[in-house]
């Protein structure tokens, strides 16, 4: 992905060029849906959350600083939208029916709805526990472990060395495991 081109399209859109926005939508939707799936485990939500992100981008493009990376900006907006969705309790705004592609992706209904619910509850606890990390640890955990960003890219985005990122992830994972283990013992 040529980030310079994305920045140019974003700058153009900021100046009123809707074609720039369309090019951004066509270039980044696939990645954003995949990232949202990593947060939610559900393709329908992933698509909805991605649409929400694009609406926010369109509404707030004036706040984008063209001297900064558009990719970083939109990923931050998207990440916050996914986290808000989990915090709100996985509320579905509307039920999508008749989507053959969604049916193909999602497969048959889960044999064990309880397992599906358990997965969602554990994911909610993991992301809530991440709120107790330091900001550096939280960002490292979300960007690497949840979103599966590359270590080099994440380290550069956070302004730290790859070695520091590895150490930060080590502490983030250990602390999360302690928090989650302590929550289970207390329950």
């Amino acid at each position: 992905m040529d980030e310079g081109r994305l920045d140019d399209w974003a700058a153009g859109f900021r100046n009123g060029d809707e074609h720039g926005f369309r090019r951004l939508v066509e270039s980044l939707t696939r990645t954003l849906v995949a990232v949202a799936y990593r947060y939610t485990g559900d393709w329908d939500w992933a698509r909805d959350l991605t649409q929400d992100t694009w609406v926010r981008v369109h509404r707030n493009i004036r706040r984008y600083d063209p001297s900064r990376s558009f990719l970083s900006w939109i990923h931050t907006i998207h990440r916050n939208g996914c986290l808000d969705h989990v915090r709100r309790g996985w509320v579905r705004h509307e039920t999508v029916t008749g989507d053959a592609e969604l049916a193909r992706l999602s497969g048959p209904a889960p044999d064990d709805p309880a397992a599906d619910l358990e997965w969602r509850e554990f994911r909610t606890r993991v992301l809530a526990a991440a709120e107790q990390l330091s900001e550096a640890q939280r960002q490292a955990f979300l960007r690497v472990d949840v979103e599966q960003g590359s270590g080099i890219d994440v380290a550069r985005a956070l302004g730290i060395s790859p070695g520091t990122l590895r150490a930060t992830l080590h502490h983030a994972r250990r602390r999360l495991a302690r928090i989650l283990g302590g929550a289970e013992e207390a329950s």
Partner: protein
Amino acid sequence: MTERIECRVFEERLDALARGTLPPDLAVELRAHAAGCAACRGLAALGDHLAGPDLATLESRVPDAWIDGMWDSVQTALADEAPLRTSRRSLRVPLLAAAVVALLVATGWSITAWSRAERRSTALASELADQRIRLAELEARLDDAVAPGAATAAGGWLRSLDGADELTLDGLRAALADLPPGTPLLSAAKARALASSRWMPGPWRASLEHLPVDEPVTAADLLNALDELDLPGGMPVPADRLLDLLS
């Protein structure tokens, strides 16, 4: 926290264990270790939960129809948010409006109150979105490894240490967490001097040995080093000596 060597090996292999790419006998050994170690068991559960197809695989599964259709669905969502255009009145609108007025008057409402509620709802939704964008901007600032900003942040942090009457370990952690993670605070040479300082207690010295040796030490590095300490958070930290070494 002091970790046994087995725990370090476990964590190094955790990603491969979750992906199922380890040799079976090694996977059995690591699972056996997790069975006896609560910390690593928790890590394994976390790793198993987060495991799954990588991002590239997930991207390949996204239907092309969704990419093509996203533009239209976004346009529809944006149009749904647009205010009613008063220039596009039809004959039906005044008749409907009259019926609505009659209905609202009959129920004790006024058109003004209804419009006000709509505008407030739209304004609140817009404000919520704006707050999310501001949060995104604040988080984006964390992404900037900008030397001038970092130097200013480091200078401000040192001045705050200077003014601290009593600094605790938790206070030091909180102060470091306030800085952008990439803020350079110590040269590698100063970090080595700190680790070998005679006044530095043993546990502190051991934690500082994990600091990088070839590049400046950042706020994130110091936080990681402090995480290695198994000391009470209320333990006092000699701020004046720390300041002497950091300045």
